[in-house]
């Protein structure tokens, strides 16, 4: 049976927000500067930036914080550190970020599951929200433009209100309760028509993109393309492109000794994980001073390859969801996946055409 769909008139949004607040702390995009948005705790509907496209950091930060303690060494014993998470409702997550969460889920669920991430993730509700692409959005190329997983409830903006679908059982329950409380109405045919029209219009609205089916061979065959050296020369190895990415999960594990500890590690200590970046010079260094990716170009190529087909084998998906965050946050303007892929594809095509049949 298809689960019921609902309609929420915009003037009743504050009531819907109250329903969300009754579940836990609500976070939503908030305008933090002239051009940037950030997921922050909100109390009132007026604080929410409904127009926000990409927040500075993706919602991964709620489940995979920049720094967290995993294990402790205390009084000579090794103990695990797992905090009891508080229920969080994340409102206003767009399709690219939902796909991103889905990818993070797969990585952290893969055996052995990451208790720290999963506990926080399973104590949350994700409310998706539709969006209209800008010139940097290319989720359509990556096939992540329609919400598939990673969310509980999804809202599509149909002008005077929202067309609402429930995905998970906790999402459906929220909607059923809100319906019983007369916050929501059942969606009518007219709403469904506008909903369909919205998604059709949206699929026509993408300004940028590329063909994805030959991505793997293009990347592999153009591994020596001169464009890489050019980009490598301009990369600052600042690592901006990775924390902003909804699917970058790499971390470092570091020890923090308690102040009372001695240098030899005989005192109390914490083992912490912190976000790391494959763009940093030491990322692929091993004992004996070998570095598998010594130059910026090596690291940049690695990153592109990982985003565009690195997980095809391990998990059967690509790890770019087309949000455009890396493009807008690269100080050198070289993290332009669309542009680079187009250059590589053109090069490929020219070679193919130049070949005798």
């Amino acid at each position: 049976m298809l689960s019921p769909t609902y309609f929420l008139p915009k003037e009743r949004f504050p009531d819907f927000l109250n329903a969300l607040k009754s579940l836990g702390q609500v976070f939503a995009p908030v305008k933090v500067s002239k051009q940037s948005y950030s997921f922050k705790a909100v109390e009132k509907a007026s604080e929410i930036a409904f127009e926000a496209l990409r927040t500075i950091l993706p919602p991964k930060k709620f489940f995979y914080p920049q720094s967290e303690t995993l294990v402790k060494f205390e009084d000579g014993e090794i103990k695990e550190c797992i905090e009891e998470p508080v229920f969080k409702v994340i409102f206003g997550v767009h399709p690219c970020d939902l796909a991103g969460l889905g990818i993070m889920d797969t990585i952290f669920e893969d055996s052995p599951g990451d208790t720290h991430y999963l506990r926080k993730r399973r104590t949350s509700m994700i409310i998706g929200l539709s969006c209209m692409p800008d010139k940097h959005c290319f989720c359509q190329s990556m096939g992540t433009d329609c919400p598939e997983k990673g969310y509980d409830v999804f809202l599509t903006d149909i002008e005077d209100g929202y067309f609402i679908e429930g995905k998970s059982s906790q999402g459906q329950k929220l909607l059923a309760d809100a319906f019983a409380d007369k916050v929501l109405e059942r969606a009518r045919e007219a709403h469904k028509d506008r909903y369909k029209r919205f998604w059709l219009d949206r699929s026509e609205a993408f300004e940028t993109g590329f063909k994805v089916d030959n991505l793997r061979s293009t990347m592999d065959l153009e591994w020596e393309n001169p464009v890489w050296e050019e980009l490598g020369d301009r990369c600052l190895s600042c690592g901006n492109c990775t924390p902003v990415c909804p699917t970058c999960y790499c971390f470092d594990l570091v020890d923090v000794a308690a102040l009372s500890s001695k240098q030899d590690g005989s005192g109390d200590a914490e083992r912490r994980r912190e976000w790391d970046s494959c763009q940093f010079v030491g990322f692929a260094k091993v004992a004996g001073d070998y570095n598998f990716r010594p130059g910026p170009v090596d690291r940049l190529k690695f990153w592109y390859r990982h985003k565009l087909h690195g997980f095809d084998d391990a998990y059967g998906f690509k790890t770019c969801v087309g949000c455009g965050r890396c493009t807008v946050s690269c100080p050198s303007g070289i993290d332009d996946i669309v542009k680079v892929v187009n250059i590589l594809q053109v090069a490929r095509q020219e070679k193919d055409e130049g070949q005798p049949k």
Partner: protein
Amino acid sequence: MIPGKTPYLSVKGTIRSIVPMAQDNYLFDFTERTGSLSGCRPGQFVELWVPGVGECPISVCSGRVSESIQLMVRRAGRVTSALFNMSEGDSVGLRGPYGQGFPMEAFKGRDLVMVAGGLGVAPIRSVWQYALDHREEFGRLVLIYGMRHTNDILFRQEFKFLLRRRDIDIFIAAEEVVGPALPPIAMQLGRVTDLLRQAEISSDSCVAVCGPPVMYKYVIDVLKERNVDEANIHLSLERHMKCGIGKCGHCFIGGKFNCKAGPVFALPEIKHVPEAIECDAASLQGGLE
């Protein structure tokens, strides 16, 4: 299902003995009472934690792991230096075993060639110990061990005994004579590749290789000259496995996590992966950290 325990939790390992070996290498023997490491197979590794300092991946170097586990450690960074300051009776954290190890079951019934370069001898030791423990299940055993300087030799005492055995052919070489005279160990001057050319290697041998990244290309070339099938060449790849459980990304090679899919790979699995085995001298760079 959310696992109840964090996968980053170590168990306590207590240092039972420390045997100094050549060139800042110590052989540590740890007692571990929970038995969580006892299923350790040749080629697998553990994460060793010195609380307050850090963790590092170390391959297991004994063929049998029960309540005691042996790790060969070279003093190289902060973690290993801290470990070197410890004494018998002190404890560290250990977690694992991780990775796939060498496919010992698949090697059975065949000739097995073990190729070790430098510190790669530590994981290869777990292979020969295992093979000698199950001697009748293997065909010919050939052990090839190359190192930079004559005084780099590890497990010198063990080799004295091994060299007397007739059921394993051992070839040892160093590139240069350095340091004091050695006990009478049959050692020549040369490289691993020279030894590989000397040894009698049947074309249907299985090969287990572990050594510095620069060594692999040359070893593979010679094995191909000897008509060894690529599918039978198993290489242990070195990466910095920080988490050991396929999450942190540091050991990512092509499309795989070295810590989970590796560190041992059959050559066909990785030969087309960029940066899997090639590592030229130009990529040698400053110190760790």
